[in-house]
């Protein structure tokens, strides 16, 4: 009984650590990526913790609801943030024994993120404006085309590990380090980087700093949100970024994740995760700096490329077994 109690307690503490880490770290990652961009532009730029300042200010403001909107607009921030937080809580970010690790399946995480995307798209349509519909249409098109690449890349990893349970994959990769250098993993990594760029709305798929509504994809869906609602949505988007980056890092470079049940291991894992994810964020930001935004109808070609790489990853796995 004490075993279950202590493992439940450990899982709870670990999951809580993960949620807090991603909730604070997600905005910090966005700030870091913005900082790399501004330094590349040769200016000082806002500090890395500027997104946290923005969030603090937003949460204190009032929310506004459009006249023809419904409960969907009001509930969407909660659902987006809730589904992303659940995905963060059950993912193996700092430990291989988070809460509900039995249900921590790759497909559960993928479909939880899909739930968030769908809710955002519905909220965009709920405003009854042209911009909202446009952002919703574009975002869900890109999501629909990124979904196959994501699922097939995830399946490639699952075939290699003989399971789709995420903590098990991470734990097995730690004990079999040779897996990380297989062609399967490398192809899946490239495919997943393309998918992560599309899902988080970074260049070259979407420009997060654009002011022109006709070039917006994710921004256009949130044009109608204000105050605390906007704060929740922004936090949800930041946590989604944090989750995708940390998952990417942990699937391909899992060393540092705590496998035991000690608090010291947990703290060390937090440090390692922060280091690894920051490195990935800098790399992605450099990709952003070097690329121009793709025309909307060229984005499917990019995602199709990612899809082909993912399929190649599966084929490579089957052939090299």
């Amino acid at each position, binding site marked *: 009984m004490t075993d279950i109690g202590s493992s439940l307690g450990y899982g709870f503490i670990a999951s809580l650590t993960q949620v807090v880490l991603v909730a604070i770290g997600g905005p910090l990652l966005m700030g870091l990526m913005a900082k790399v961009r501004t330094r590349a532009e040769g*200016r000082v730029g*806002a500090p890395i913790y500027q997104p946290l*300042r923005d969030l603090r200010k937003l949460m204190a403001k009032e929310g506004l609801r459009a006249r023809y909107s419904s409960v969907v607009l009001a509930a969407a921030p909660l659902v987006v943030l809730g589904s992303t937080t659940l995905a963060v809580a059950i993912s193996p970010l700092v430990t291989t024994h988070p809460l509900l690790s039995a249900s921590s399946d790759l497909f559960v995480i993928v479909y939880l993120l899909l739930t968030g995307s769908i809710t955002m798209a519905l909220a965009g349509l709920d405003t009854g404006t042209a911009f909202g519909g446009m952002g919703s249409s574009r975002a869900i098109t890109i999501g629909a085309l990124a979904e196959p690449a994501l699922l097939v890349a995830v399946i490639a990893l699952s075939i290699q590990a003989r399971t789709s349970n995420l903590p098990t994959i991470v734990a097995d990769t730690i004990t079999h380090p040779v897996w990380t250098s297989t062609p399967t993993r490398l192809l899946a990594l490239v495919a997943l980087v393309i998918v992560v760029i599309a899902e988080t709305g970074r260049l070259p798929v979407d420009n997060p700093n654009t002011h022109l509504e006709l070039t917006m994809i994710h921004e256009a869906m949130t044009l109608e949100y204000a105050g605390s609602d906007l704060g929740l949505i922004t936090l949800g988007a930041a946590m989604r970024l944090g989750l995708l980056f940390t998952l990417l890092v942990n699937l391909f470079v899992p060393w540092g994740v705590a496998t035991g049940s000690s608090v010291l291991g947990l703290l060390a894992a937090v440090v390692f995760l922060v280091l690894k994810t920051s490195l990935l964020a800098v790399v992605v930001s450099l990709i952003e700096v070097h690329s121009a935004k793709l025309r909307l109808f060229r984005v499917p070609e990019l995602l199709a490329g990612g899809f082909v790489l993912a399929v190649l990853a599966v084929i490579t796995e089957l052939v090299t077994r």
Partner: protein
Amino acid sequence: MSTSRYRRGSILRSLFSKARTEPAAAMPDIVPGIGLRGSLQLRHVDVGSCNGCEIEIASAFAPTYDASRFGARLVASPRHADGVLVTGVVTRNMAGALERTLDALPQPSVVVACGDCAVNGGIFREAYGVEATLDSFVNVDVRIPGCPPHPEAITQALRSLTGR
């Protein structure tokens, strides 16, 4: 002509070298009662400007004078903004749009008048298309005089709101 300051170089080189931004001036007086604490998003509204102030605002957010290091940012939607940055004199055609923009702001909000035209009508005060001056429309919190104002002045005005 010396090209050392603007020599073409790789992006990576600029990542590791010193930024080309002007050093920050002395901290201005903070406008009381705003309490933005380092985060200010403004929606720029041109109600009837000659675009001179817009060029200076663009310079204020450009690498040389960089207002974003003090936490200020321009945003696309007034819903995302803490206030409006108004340039130009209030013309008849844009009066309605300005009203709707102000209505779309979440409270509490600020109004920043940039340039002589926004502050007191400037040189276009007596023109036929002018509806009113900004002061008669709405309570203005910060005024930036000048035709056009220096980017440094714009940055200092924004700092007086953010307090950083």
